[in-house]
């Protein structure tokens, strides 16, 4: 049986780890609540955006726009949103597996992938898997400001317009609800995929009574669509970053709660072990005294 001092050291270590994990759980749960409020309040924005997109794409005269057309370039852009810190369960691992699938598919179908990342931990994991990374967005911590989103998106839209890439997709952990988050790929460009995703996940009731032709337009439909497409791409990327941060913090809350529970369990077990060792030591000492007294009595 291990010595009591050794057991006490282990118990102190477990207690310290428990304190750290409990603090991390508290910090992440506060952040999670903040982001969750933002996510809930943003739902109506995405719903209204979806309604506008639905109106425009269901017009009797189809709207022609460069971002609606498919491209024949072999290059594709993949923006992977992970976390800067670890200790959030399988969060980064799941994203890595999904990126692996994209890499294999690209190899199989003769496509080239341009991978952009966010998150130090994820970037490190991808580099370990020898996946070449074009650029890491590290100017912001979790959720970028509107200006930063504009800079990110403008580069992607420019590449698509110039026919340099045929697809722009985001790999991130989508937050469906507090009970369900899943790593998935959202296609941002070409636009039909994004509009499809926006309109099918919207919480509004379809179809709408009004048709596109009922509206007074200012400026023309093409120009409105041009602005709307830019807004949709930016809002979608912003939404992806927000959902990724939300999922990360929820993942960390769960992981850290489990770690704190495990630490508490270990502390209990070590306390039992320590008491047993202490009693065994006392019994031994008593036996020694009794043995010594008996020997002295003879």
């Amino acid at each position, binding site marked *: 049986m291990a010595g009591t001092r050794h057991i006490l050291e282990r118990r102190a270590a477990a207690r310290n780890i428990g304190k750290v994990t409990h603090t991390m759980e508290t910090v992440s749960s506060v952040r999670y609540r903040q982001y969750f*409020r*933002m996510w809930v*309040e*943003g739902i*109506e*924005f*995405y719903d*209204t*955006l979806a*309604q*506008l997109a639905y*109106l425009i794409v269901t017009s009797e005269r189809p709207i022609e726009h460069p971002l609606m057309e498919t491209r024949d370039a072999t290059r594709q852009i993949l923006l992977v949103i992970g976390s800067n810190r670890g200790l959030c369960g399988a969060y980064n691992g799941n994203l890595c597996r999904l990126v692996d699938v994209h890499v294999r598919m690209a190899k199989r179908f003769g496509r080239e992938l341009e991978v952009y990342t966010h998150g130090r931990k994820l970037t490190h994991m991808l580099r370990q898997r020898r996946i070449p990374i074009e650029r890491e967005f590290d100017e912001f911590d979790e959720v970028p400001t*509107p200006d930063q989103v504009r800079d990110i998106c403008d580069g992607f839209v420019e590449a698509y317009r110039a026919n340099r890439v045929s697809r722009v997709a985001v790999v991130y952990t989508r937050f469906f609800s507090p009970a369900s988050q899943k790593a998935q790929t959202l296609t941002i460009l070409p636009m039909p995929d994004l509009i499809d995703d926006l309109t099918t996940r919207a919480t509004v009731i379809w179809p709408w009574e*009004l048709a596109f032709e*009922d*509206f*007074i*337009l*200012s*400026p023309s439909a093409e*120009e*409105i669509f041009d*602005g*709307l497409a830019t*807004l949709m791409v*930016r*809002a979608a990327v*912003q*939404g992806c970053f*927000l959902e990724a941060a939300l999922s990360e913090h929820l993942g960390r809350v769960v992981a850290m709660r489990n770690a704190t529970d495990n630490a508490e369990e270990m502390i209990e077990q070590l306390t039992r072990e320590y008491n047993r060792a202490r009693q065994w030591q006392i019994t031994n000492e008593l036996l020694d005294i009794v043995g010594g007294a008996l020997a002295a009595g003879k």
Partner: protein
Amino acid sequence: MVGWATGVFRFVLLTPHGKLLDCRAGSVVVPGHDGQIGVLRNHAPLLCKLGLGLVRVEEIAGRKNACFVVNGGFARVSENHMAVLAYDVTTFEEMEEGEAQALLAQARDTIAAGSRGRADPTEVQKARLILRMAKYTGVEPVPATDEPAPA
């Protein structure tokens, strides 16, 4: 929809981070891409691209008028419901006095830098709009000198 233009209609100002205003208003003026657009009750369905300017919401039930600086976005009017979708919005709503003063000071600095040709023209225009918004919403700028403000 045919009817009188008097009365109120629902107005919401939405951003990806949340709803900045949800109320029933009597009149709304938004900065269209080619000039200002005024909306009253029973307006015809309208889909419009916005430019840089002030969104003024007036005759709101139970509170004073609201004002926002928006840079781009969309406005949709249909069935007495107006939704403004904007990405870049600046407002004094729910702002502490100190924060509002800091925003005003920043706007004044931007205008000063702009007059020396050291600031982005859009930012300068936005700063001017922030000062106009302060005047409209009654946010009093603190005097720039060290002397105490008159009682």
